[in-house]
């Protein structure tokens, strides 16, 4: 390279510089998700129709759709769905709001942090389903024990996400608030909470998925109506079509909740790029 004679003699024809900067940049492909769904369902349908997937392994997707239609027409769908949604809403709301409150307190006060973080760490790994008998004793066999189970299950992940989000609020913004003489309450309300909002919302996504899992668990253990009860009934009769119809409803419920949080994020976090 340092040899001055190098650039005098043209040794070979010029080569275009090879591009090597591609990849590692996720791009949205809206159509890809539906395509995968349709392909998997079509494959299952073919397999069950042709017989290389036995009826005991997997029900025909068209039969599952039929079971779903039956549910809809008989009005049973809403008899099962409404109590489930109610439990999810009440339990999830209690758990999430208590979780956010405790998380913010942990983030703001070192005494609360020192006292509560070990407690939260201790109750986080307990499978909450194991506590259902205890909740039945405390709150009765009715709705209250189901609310408690869902609330308890959403509480811990919300706490952890919230105090992590409060910890991550830019300290220089808080320092700025103090330097302008803002009151403690103003700093919390106008700087800490909005700054923690992205973290709180992404924590809620996880908490609400856990809430759906616990909802089904609670309904399997003692409910006459509800998606969980419906799945349990179908399962004990080995009625795979109805079982899968129930599972599809749960999955749709999860997708809907996730979409709702996505909408809230888009609205509240418009300030992010």
């Amino acid at each position, binding site marked *: 390279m340092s040899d001055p004679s190098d650039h005098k003699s043209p040794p070979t024809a010029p080569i275009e510089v090879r591009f090597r900067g591609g990849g590692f940049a996720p791009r949205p492909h809206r159509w890809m998700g539906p395509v995968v769904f349709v392909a998997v369902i079509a494959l299952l349908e073919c397999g069950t129709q042709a017989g290389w997937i036995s009826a005991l392994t997997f029900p025909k997707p068209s039969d599952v759709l039929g079971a779903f239609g039956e549910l809809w027409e008989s009005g049973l769908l809403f008899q099962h769905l409404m109590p489930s949604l109610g439990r999810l809403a009440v339990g999830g709301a209690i758990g999430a709001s208590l979780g956010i409150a405790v998380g913010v307190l942990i983030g703001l006060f070192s005494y609360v942090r020192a006292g509560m973080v070990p407690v939260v760490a201790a109750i986080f790994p307990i499978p909450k389903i194991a506590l259902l008998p205890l909740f039945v004793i405390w709150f009765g066999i009715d709705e209250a024990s189901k609310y408690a189970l869902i609330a308890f299950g959403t509480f811990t992940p919300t706490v952890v996400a919230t105090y992590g989000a409060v910890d991550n609020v830019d300290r220089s*913004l808080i320092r700025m608030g103090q330097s302008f003489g803002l009151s403690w309450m*103003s700093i919390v309300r106008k700087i800490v909470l*909005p700054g923690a909002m992205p973290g709180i919302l992404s924590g809620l996504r996880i908490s609400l998925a856990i809430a759906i899992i616990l909802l089904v668990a609670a309904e399997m253990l003692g409910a006459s109506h509800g998606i969980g009860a419906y799945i349990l009934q179908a399962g004990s009769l080995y009625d795979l079509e109805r079982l899968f119809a129930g599972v599809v409803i749960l999955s749709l419920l999860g997708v809907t909740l996730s979409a709702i949080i996505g909408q809230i994020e888009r609205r509240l976090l418009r300030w992010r*790029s």
Partner: protein
Amino acid sequence: MDIRLNSISHSYGDTEVLRDISLDIPSGRIVCLVGPSGCGKSTLLRLIGGLERPTIGKILQLGDPPQGCLNPLTYIFQDFALLPWRSVRGNISLVLEDHGIRGASADAIIEDVLARTKLSDFRDALPRQLSGGMKQRVAVARALAVKPAVMLMDEPLSALDSQTRELLMDDLVALWTRQPFTAVYVTHNLAEAVRLGHRIVVLSRRPGQINEVVEIDKPLADRGYGDADLEKTQKHLWDLMRDEARAADEELIDV
């Protein structure tokens, strides 16, 4: 309102960062603090504004802040410290809300400071839409809104590129010429110090002590980019600092 520092010393644990600093900040003038990195100049600024307490010594306010002053000691930060979820207007109204100034009286103040910083067309923009220079002008507007007695500027131009820095320096000079304000201006950039400082305080490396105080009598408005006499002062400052800056650079950080 003047500020007086009475033999200030400050330590973090066993590390002494400032030693016996006595300094007067007269009203209506800009005092620049320069020194090698890690000499405690930003710490001194935090002490002056009451964001930290000095280990030894007192910082005194002499005289009353001017009429209508909402926040006598007001900072302008290196990283702008704008709330990303509030518009330009919202960021300025943030510091007025706590003083019960809302509605029309707040609008009047906001319009006034936006006009003075040439930001009137950007009142509804979000911080992420603004360039670094614009963000710092919003921070200046926010500081002006509380009618400070003393502006405490912590390397306000250090996060900006050199062209934006020149433009913003001209803006600051214009602001001062229209209405002289008191400021403590921390910088590591000697060109900024000689352009904006009436008095330049050179600190030694850690523990920071006052090495020399240089007065520049030339009016701010007459100083320009690359003035010969300013270059001379700048060279003098650099001669004072060079060896210390090198020694500071070679120091281990986590002592």
